[in-house]
């Protein structure tokens, strides 16, 4: 008798208790997120929506905006400056992303093994990450100056002469800003890879060694697949940041010579801040957001397909 009562009552009670617990959790969740939602909503999302609206207007900062529909976006399609900036952006990202990631992986593999001065080398590789690119770019510009730059001078001693200077030569300026971009960020990705390497159980390698597998097969069959998630995250983060390249270009070349290093963010800056065509600048940056979004989705899809789970 008593047992039947309890068994009948229990599921009901459990359901309501579960229901109220869930409601309680939901309420807690929104309270946890409240400060963030207020700050992001007011100071990020709202200006973003305004920028989105302005991209459909001829806003010139000083006068009220006038709705022109898709005018700015149509202009994008026929504007050679936009085409140029798009190509430069993709070129920059297509080189710096894989090179940074590959270098980071190589450095992480090297610095994951015990070796003398390991701590020092790790720190040295990471230091560029923590310092201001705007400031170091000034140093880089000076070092690369063809007339009084120390680096140019040393390079010329070993026979590498850049007649015009790295930053002034239209075909070398982009590689130069890429170099600085890679130098700046490689340490960050290296540390992420180091973290991934440290989470791989050493037992796997021991087993492989017992089977007589050499260094390369060990890398191919254990390290690389187990780093797949890490690689995905690093590649996506690297792609997002390289597609937004701005700082060192702003300081070192300002987009020149003749727009050879003008990326989309640089173009946004020029069109909006210097020519006051803010509506058009907003359209350029929304095109960039779309580009980043699509590429991130593609990358995610690509890595998901190849993801290995253990």
């Amino acid at each position, binding site marked *: 008798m008593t047992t039947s009562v309890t068994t009948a009552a229990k599921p009901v009670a459990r359901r309501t208790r579960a229901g109220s617990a869930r409601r309680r959790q939901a309420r807690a969740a929104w309270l946890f997120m409240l400060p*963030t939602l207020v700050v992001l909503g007011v*100071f990020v999302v709202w200006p973003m929506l305004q920028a989105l609206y302005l991209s459909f207007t001829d806003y010139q900062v000083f006068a009220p905006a006038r709705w022109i529909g898709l005018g700015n976006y149509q202009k994008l399609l026929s504007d050679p400056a936009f085409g140029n900036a798009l190509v430069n952006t993709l070129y920059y990202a297509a080189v710096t992303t894989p090179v940074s990631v590959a270098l980071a992986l190589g450095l992480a593999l090297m610095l994951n093994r015990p070796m003398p001065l390991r701590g020092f080398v790790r720190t040295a590789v990471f230091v560029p990450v923590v*310092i201001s690119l*705007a400031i170091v770019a000034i140093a880089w510009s000076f070092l690369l100056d063809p007339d009084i730059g120390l680096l140019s001078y040393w390079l010329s001693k070993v026979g590498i002469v850049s007649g015009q200077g790295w930053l002034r030569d239209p075909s070398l300026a982009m590689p130069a800003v890429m170099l600085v971009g890679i130098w700046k960020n490689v*340490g960050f990705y290296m540390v992420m890879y180091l*973290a991934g390497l440290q989470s791989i159980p050493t037992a796997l390698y021991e087993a492989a060694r017992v089977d007589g597998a050499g260094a390369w097969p060990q890398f191919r069959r254990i390290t690389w697949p187990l780093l797949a998630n890490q690689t995905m995250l690093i590649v996506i983060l690297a792609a997002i940041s390289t597609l937004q390249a701005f700082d060192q270009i702003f300081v070192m070349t300002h987009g020149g010579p003749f727009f050879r290093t003008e990326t989309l963010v640089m173009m946004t800056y020029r069109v*909006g801040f210097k020519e006051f065509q803010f509506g058009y600048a907003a359209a350029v940056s929304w095109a960039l957001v779309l580009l980043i979004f699509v590429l991130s989705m593609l990358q995610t899809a690509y890595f998901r397909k190849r993801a290995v789970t253990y």
Partner: protein
Amino acid sequence: MGQDNRGLRLTWRILTTAIGLAIALAMLFPLVWMVATSLKPESEIVSFPPKLLPTTFTLDNYTGVWERLPFTRLFLNTVVFAGTVTVCSLLFDSMTAYALARLRFRGKGVVFVLVLVLLMVPFQVTLIPLYDLLAHLGWINTFQGLIVPRLTNAFGIFFLRQFLLSIPRDLEDAARVDGASEFRIYWRIVMPLAVPALLTLGLFHFMYNWNDLLWPLIISQDASRQTLPAGLALFMGQHVVEYGPLMAASVMTLLPVVVFFIIIQRRFVAGVATTGIR
């Protein structure tokens, strides 16, 4: 045979050490150059052929910084700006990350996607509308204008969410069964476990805001609210650049972040390691 092997291993050891050292020096080279340059007189900086080390050693550039910039004031402003943003952002980011990683509620997907989208939007897009908003609030050239828009950060939320997903739930489930509140679980159980990740993110927030140029440059209007990088930008001009004081001030600006990093370095790498990101 064994002799050979040992010889080979020694060569390998020397080789990797040499390569490691070369890489380290290459990475540090611009910094070394900056420090060396800040100790040269102006005429030597622009002389040819260039040399790395100063032939005449001078500290004039460092004293020159104080003549040209209210350095102490700028330094304190930067500490207030970067420090407040770092502390507040860690709190708000972690609260949001906790909700996204640990709590079940409707709309979670939407919030997370929003965070991801915000990660992809370049800051320059929102600059003008944000400035107008702050001007409307009367927040131009104020600390709240500098700080409040930075109080939380999409990257921080994303980073901490990834971390929280990777730590086991056993402890908090037990606490939940015992009837502990969500805040208690967040504050007493999850946050202590997240210390390494919080330190790592703290470094990122700190260095990002310490180094940021465009934002403080545009929001501040005089030395009372300028930060160091914004103050440094005042050294450069289209036709007049004083490299000596500029490099001295740069070295003094970079130093705190480098020191901060070296202090937390060990725990920092551990922080990323435990993040595990899967």
